[in-house]
């Protein structure tokens, strides 16, 4: 293990001449984004394309008594008005369950509601017109007669006998429950010198992708094929789902994903209005476009994080943690989201809580309940921000209780760096982690002692600053254990095909997708390094089910670790093929040759023997000059899936430094640090920017973001003026450091880095606020987001 600098030396196992691995190579294809020449789905127009808009339920729960569509059908520009019952003739409903989440249940969900709307915003009727504006005009002319039903909105009472059951056929409002006991929690709490108990709250929030969800579906009856231009993270998953529910074969469906304006887990799920759009295209036999507007995004993009967790920690006076306990309750809306389910976040919280620490005594219960609000599902760092904030909140409350420094209590309890392989209190397996080295690096990087001195000095002047920490672990590079074993057609493996073009450049096609995180750069860097060409001679093609190897796409921090390894193996395979061809041309032995900087060279001397351009010319245009029986194979495909470990866990630690104004309750973020270990760093700049973006997304949940519902299930702040997101002026500079512990599951050794920032930031900010307010005897703040109002309440000022 070693600390990675901004441009760390090349990792030895991957050492090749002119390697790009470990270098901050700029991403290809950025100029189109800086010049306004990108191709987002919302930019797309096709011949005969019509626009869909949806009439959406204003009620959280209502019976649909009747829908009068005549006036809308006669409105200018209208092509069709389609109800749920009519659309159900071309698309089947779905149920979001997985077999490995024992007992999880949900009800069939339709593309457009039939008979009953179960949340405010659920589509009840579609209008298709020449323009979006005309479609929206006509939506206003659709008359829906609703009979309002009692709405279940409070997850705390969702399971009580007097509460209506949203789906009576399921028997109750319980979606999923998991109980876990590890070690001996009762003994652990008995052995403790102090037990700290509190309740953590996490506000419902959502992804607010800058480009809303967008889809253009084009059913061509002449080809009997459906082409879907889709802002998605998982083209092959969507291909499967579109085919399955429209009654098509998968080869009849092509999903194309070009530029995507932000995803973060929002665009990896099945959305009813998107399924309705493909069904409308099938029904009307022409291209149909749907782009969610901002209000539709707030009421239909998946929400996440609405958890209430009662939590307990036992600690000895010497700082030894003796036991953990959590009781999680979360309300996920009226349906478990298809196909990944809405049980995963609670399941992750049970898996991850206490994860960085040695104490094995752990009792956990998580209950997931239905309610009449928008659906919840997996959003960036699924469960991690919650498990981390609970764990780290408990650790710092325990440290304060026994009067120990927050870094010292961690040093005494974090799993030792030399104790791996190891496991967490829930039984999760760790190949190799570096908690202590990360902590030591952070300590030095932030000048912890200096900050404490500054904090003390300023307190004397009535300025209240706080330092808070969060050690964390992150699930990356998921194997089939995540979804495949539960029956979902979501690929854990991914592939890369590389071919030599006729001028000596290479073309890489891959199943992982570009969402702006830099997957194309990573694939290009790895392929260039493994094969031996300058990176300018690499083109990467992603996001097209007709033209890429089958793969999972981008989610759970998998693109670099899994797609990167496939690119490494494919690059090596193509190099071997090309060297075989070169050897036959040069009458040399392949093992005496190498490919460097786009040239076939003598392995020992580095002397050029043949340019790749010349090799390609011979292989493609004058193969008659090659020895009889020799066939050049200038295209190679390799796939990769992690097998040795269910997940490649990463780790790290974050720190927040901030100031709280006790008069106004406002928090000013001064600085944020993150040291993380994602194994081999392929591109330090891209890793750092994933961390920074993730940290700010975590800060959003900690301080600002909250989908506020009233007791009738009405979202009160479904717009960007009332739902606050982090903007430039309020965000701090963020320093990022690295420790490098490669996974041995792949030759590349890379783990994921996409979610670590989001995982740790909320807990660090929470701990910093409580650290700032401790001298004022404030009640510890544990209910996110930490608004000025809540801070003033904690101070007893309002």
């Amino acid at each position, binding site marked *: 293990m070693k600390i990675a600098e901004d441009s760390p030396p090349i990792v030895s196992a991957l050492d090749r001449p002119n390697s790009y691995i470990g270098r901050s190579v700029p991403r290809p294809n950025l100029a189109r984004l800086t010049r*306004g020449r990108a191709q987002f789905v919302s930019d797309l127009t096709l011949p005969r394309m019509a626009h869909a808009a949806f009439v959406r339920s204003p009620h959280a729960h209502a019976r649909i008594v009747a829908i009068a569509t005549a006036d809308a059908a006669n409105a200018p520009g209208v092509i069709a008005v389609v109800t749920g019952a009519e659309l159900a003739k071309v698309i089947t409903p779905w149920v979001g369950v997985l077999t490995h989440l024992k007992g999880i249940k949900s009800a069939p969900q339709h593309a457009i509601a039939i008979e009953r709307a179960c949340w405010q915003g659920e589509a009840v009727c579609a209008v298709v017109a020449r323009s979006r504006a005309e479609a929206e005009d006509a939506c206003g002319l659709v008359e829906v007669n609703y009979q309002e039903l009692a709405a279940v909105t409070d997850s705390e009472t969702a399971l009580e006998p007097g509460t209506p059951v949203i789906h009576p056929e399921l028997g109750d409002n319980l979606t999923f429950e998991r109980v876990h006991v590890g070690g001996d929690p009762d003994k652990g709490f008995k052995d403790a010198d102090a037990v700290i108990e509190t309740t953590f709250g996490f506000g419902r929030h959502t992804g607010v992708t800058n480009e809303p969800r967008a889809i253009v579906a084009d059913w061509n009856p002449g080809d009997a094929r459906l082409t879907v231009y889709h802002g998605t993270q998982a083209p092959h998953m969507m291909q499967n789902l579109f085919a399955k529910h429209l009654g098509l074969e998968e080869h009849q469906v092509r999903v194309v994903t070009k530029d995507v*304006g932000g995803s973060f887990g929002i665009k990896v799920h099945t959305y009813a209005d998107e399924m309705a759009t493909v069904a409308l295209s099938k029904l009307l036999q022409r291209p149909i476009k749907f782009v969610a507007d*901002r209000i539709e995004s707030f009421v239909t993009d998946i929400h996440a994080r609405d958890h209430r967790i009662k939590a307990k920690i036992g600690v000895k006076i010497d700082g030894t943690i003796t036991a953990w306990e959590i009781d999680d309750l979360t309300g996920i809306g009226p349906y478990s989201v298809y196909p990944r389910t809405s049980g995963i976040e609670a399941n992750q919280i049970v898996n991850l809580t206490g994860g960085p620490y040695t104490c094995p005594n752990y009792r956990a219960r998580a209950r997931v309940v239905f309610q009449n609000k928008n659906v919840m599902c997996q959003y960036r760092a699924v469960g991690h921000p919650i498990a981390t904030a609970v764990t780290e909140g408990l650790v710092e409350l325990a440290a304060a209780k026994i009067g120990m420094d927050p870094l010292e209590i961690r040093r005494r309890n974090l799993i030792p760096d030399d104790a791996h392989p190891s496991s967490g209190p829930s039984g999760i397996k760790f190949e190799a982690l570096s908690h202590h080295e990360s902590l030591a690096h952070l300590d030095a990087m932030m000048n912890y002692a200096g900050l404490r001195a500054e904090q003390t000095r300023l307190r004397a002047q009535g300025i209240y600053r706080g330092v808070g920490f969060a050690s964390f672990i992150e699930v990356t590079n998921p194997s089939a254990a995540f979804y495949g074993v539960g029956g979902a057609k979501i690929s854990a493996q991914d592939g890369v095909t590389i071919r030599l073009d006729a001028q000596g450049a290479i073309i890489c096609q891959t199943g992982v997708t570009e969402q702006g995180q830099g997957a194309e750069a990573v694939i290009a860097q790895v392929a260039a390094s493994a094969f031996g060409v300058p990176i300018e001679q690499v083109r990467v093609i992603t996001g097209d089910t007709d033209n890429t190897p089958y793969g999972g796409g981008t989610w759970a921090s998998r693109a670099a670790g899994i797609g990167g390894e496939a690119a490494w193996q494919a690059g090596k395979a193509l190099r071997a093929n090309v060297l075989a061809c070169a050897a036959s041309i040069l009458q040399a032995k392949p093992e005496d040759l190498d490919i460097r900087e786009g040239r076939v060279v003598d392995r020992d001397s580095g002397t050029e023997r043949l340019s790749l351009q010349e090799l390609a010319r011979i292989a493609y245009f004058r193969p008659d000059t090659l020895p009889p029986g020799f066939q050049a194979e200038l295209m190679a495909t390799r796939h990769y899936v992690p097998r040795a470990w269910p997940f490649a866990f990463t780790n790290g630690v974050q720190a927040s430094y901030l100031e709280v104004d006790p008069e106004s309750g406002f928090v000013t973020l001064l600085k944020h640090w993150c040291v993380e270990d994602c194994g081999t760093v392929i591109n330090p700049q891209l890793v750092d920017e994933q961390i920074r973006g993730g*940290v700010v*997304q975590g800060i959003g949940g900690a301080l600002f973001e909250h989908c506020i519902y009233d007791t009738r299930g009405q979202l009160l702040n479904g*717009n960007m003026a009332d739902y606050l997101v982090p903007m*430039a002026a309020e965000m701090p500079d963020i320093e990022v450091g690295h420790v490098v512990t490669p996974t041995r599951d792949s030759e590349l050794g890379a783990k994921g880095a996409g979610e670590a920032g989001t995982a740790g930031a909320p807990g660090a900010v929470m701990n910093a606020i409580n650290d700032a307010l401790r001298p004022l005897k404030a009640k510890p703040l544990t209910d996110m987001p930490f608004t000025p109002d809540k801070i003033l309440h904690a101070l007893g000022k309002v």
Partner: protein
Amino acid sequence: MSERFHDIAITVNGEKVRERVDARKTLVDFLREDLALTGSHVGCEHGVCGACSVRVDGVVVRGCLMLAVQCDGARVDTIEGVADAAEITDLQHAFVARNALQCGYCTPGMLLTAQELLVRGGIPSREQIRAHLSGNYCRCTGYHAIVDAVEAVAQARSGAKG
């Protein structure tokens, strides 16, 4: 319906354009739908996110809060025009070099807004850069890299002026 549709004459990226527009059509919808200039993006449609930022008579405005009919006689510059005119080539290069964009959806608006600050001259502080960009939402980067890129261009331009 004579009051609903209006003939307008606009200079867009230096080209003279005459179109008949619906009175309710926003400037950004007009640019994207009628002129196929899709570099200006629609993010929130209520003036908060800044993805639709364009210049009208030299001033950066929200394309979703201005109607196309209001631009009759005006000069409108979008990211496509500003890029083709090579007005912000250094800023675009800095954004690429610093990875100050990820998905890139906010980038056209972010670049035009940053250029508005940069043309004032001098080297703004990081706080001033952050304040000037505070109406442009970026979900991907966390802003740090954007501030770095703008700061680097301010320094380079100042140095170049000597």
